[in-house]
């Protein structure tokens, strides 16, 4: 079979795996409710009483919801399947390890995208306007893909305890929301704060969201998009390469 046909076939199987993930891991009431409520409460706990404008709040809230939901389940799917003894059967199917990971990423991408509609619709109700809908849409999609690709990076260590992986993920995720211009805009950060912010992919999405909704961002839109693209590629390469090494060690 020529390589392109093979890749297409594996992509189809990734979609099958993504659909399986959504049915088993994502379409549960508590997962969805927690996925929305947790970032919302976390966000409110840092913004309430600060008399911030809706235009300022919605980009931050959106960034936070997208980041948390797209990285909520994807880190624990692989260790969970290893622990539940479903992984060996999956790995003996004619799918590459990359195909499995891409499937997990696609599921988390769809979940993040779906849930991010909640703050967007909420914002529209509250009267925000999106200046350039196309750029905004591209940014949301790209960011969802970027954060979804980050999820499996957390699950590279071949432990089969989902709780351990969750801990690793939390240790990274919580600091990230504080350095990404969500609660304090980049403009108001000192130079060292801005330097730290640039290592977080969430910074670039929040910046585009502010550009689209508040009408001004800190960085040029092209820089934000390129940075998101670069982070996405980095996460994808790392996750796909390293899971190849560690997944057989889970069995």
């Amino acid at each position: 079979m020529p390589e392109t046909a093979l890749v297409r076939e594996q992509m189809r199987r990734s979609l099958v795996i993504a659909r399986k993930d959504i049915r088993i891991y994502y379409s549960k009431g508590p997962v969805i409710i927690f996925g929305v409520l947790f970032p919302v409460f976390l966000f409110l706990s840092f913004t309430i009483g600060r008399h911030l404008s809706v235009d300022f709040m919605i980009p931050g809230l959106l960034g936070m919801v997208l980041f948390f939901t797209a990285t909520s389940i994807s880190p624990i799917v692989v260790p969970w399947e290893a622990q539940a003894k479903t992984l060996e059967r999956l790995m003996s199917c004619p799918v590459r390890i990359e195909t499995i990971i891409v499937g997990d990423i696609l599921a988390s991408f769809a979940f993040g995208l779906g849930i991010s509609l909640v703050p967007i619709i909420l914002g529209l109700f509250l009267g925000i306007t999106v200046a350039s809908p196309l750029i905004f849409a591209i940014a949301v999609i790209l960011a969802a893909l970027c954060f979804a690709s980050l999820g499996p990076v957390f699950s590279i260590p071949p432990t089969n305890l989902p709780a351990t992986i969750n801990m690793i993920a939390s240790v990274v995720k919580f600091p990230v929301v504080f350095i990404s211009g969500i609660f304090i805009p980049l403009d108001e950060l000192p130079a060292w704060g801005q330097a730290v912010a640039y290592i977080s992919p969430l910074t670039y999405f929040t910046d585009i969201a502010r550009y689209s909704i508040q009408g001004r961002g800190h960085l040029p839109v092209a820089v934000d998009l390129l940075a998101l693209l670069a982070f996405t590629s980095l996460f994808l390469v790392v996750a796909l390469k390293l899971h190849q090494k560690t997944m057989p060690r889970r069995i």
Partner: protein
Amino acid sequence: MNNDVAIQVANLSKYYGQLLAVDHISFTVGRGELFGFLGPNGAGKTTTVRMLTGVVIADEGSASILEYKAGSLKAKQVTGVVPEMANAYADLSGWDNLMLMAELYGIPASVARERGISLMQEMGLYPRKHSLVKTYSKGMKQRLILCMALVSDPEVLFLDEPTSGLDVQSARLIKDLLQSLNAKGKTIFLTTHDMDEANQLCDRVAIIDKGNIVAIDAPEKLRMATSGMHSVEVSFDNMVSPEVLANIPGVNAVKKLGDKYRLYTANPGELVVSLANYSSSHGLKVISLNILVPSLEDAFVALTEKETEHA
């Protein structure tokens, strides 16, 4: 290239840290063969199956399935697997698990549905096909795993202790299915601890111990080759002293068991003739005479114990 070879293994090895779990094993399984893989706990059976099904990566050596490199997509595409400890997705129904597998093997939906129905009927799962797997009993789960392995109609089937812990009916159902698949020409690689099962089902068995293959042959030949284990049990109408019996040519040892004697020999056929001659020339009447052949289990114990002594 040989069209008669289904599984070819050469020097396959796997280390877990310092432990050499599988030690440079080589063997060939013919197309259409039902091949048994026996060995004590920890011998390396599951590790071998995992290398052959591409779940675990071998450290040395090579293996191929129908001439495709083991672990490659093509090899996996023609292989069905029942892993030793595998679960279906508990939150999906039996039917959805089955269709998921079919999709992952790229089986067209209509073909998958047809096969799914007939497999589930055959395995007695059809009435419960829409129940979630978490409500299935152990035997039902195992039968479902077997259906999942078969929905792609694989040419080569790997089963790692498929009947362990099942009741007689479930085990029988699975064994019957394996026999009928084998009759249709499928190659089956079966790991088991059940000597009767291996004896009934397998064309050939390999015995692996501490990562090494210590014997490969037809079960009957393995039994026969277990030297010193053959014996003849005989009783006469009159007392005969054991010393006299021990002097009959071909008798290696004599053991008195109540009113019978057990005579150990390398050649039971000849011994029976000698016994008949002895009794007629001494005016004795043989009341009973039994030839005892070693079971596959005796062969297994003898082969794996010998290994232990060497180690």
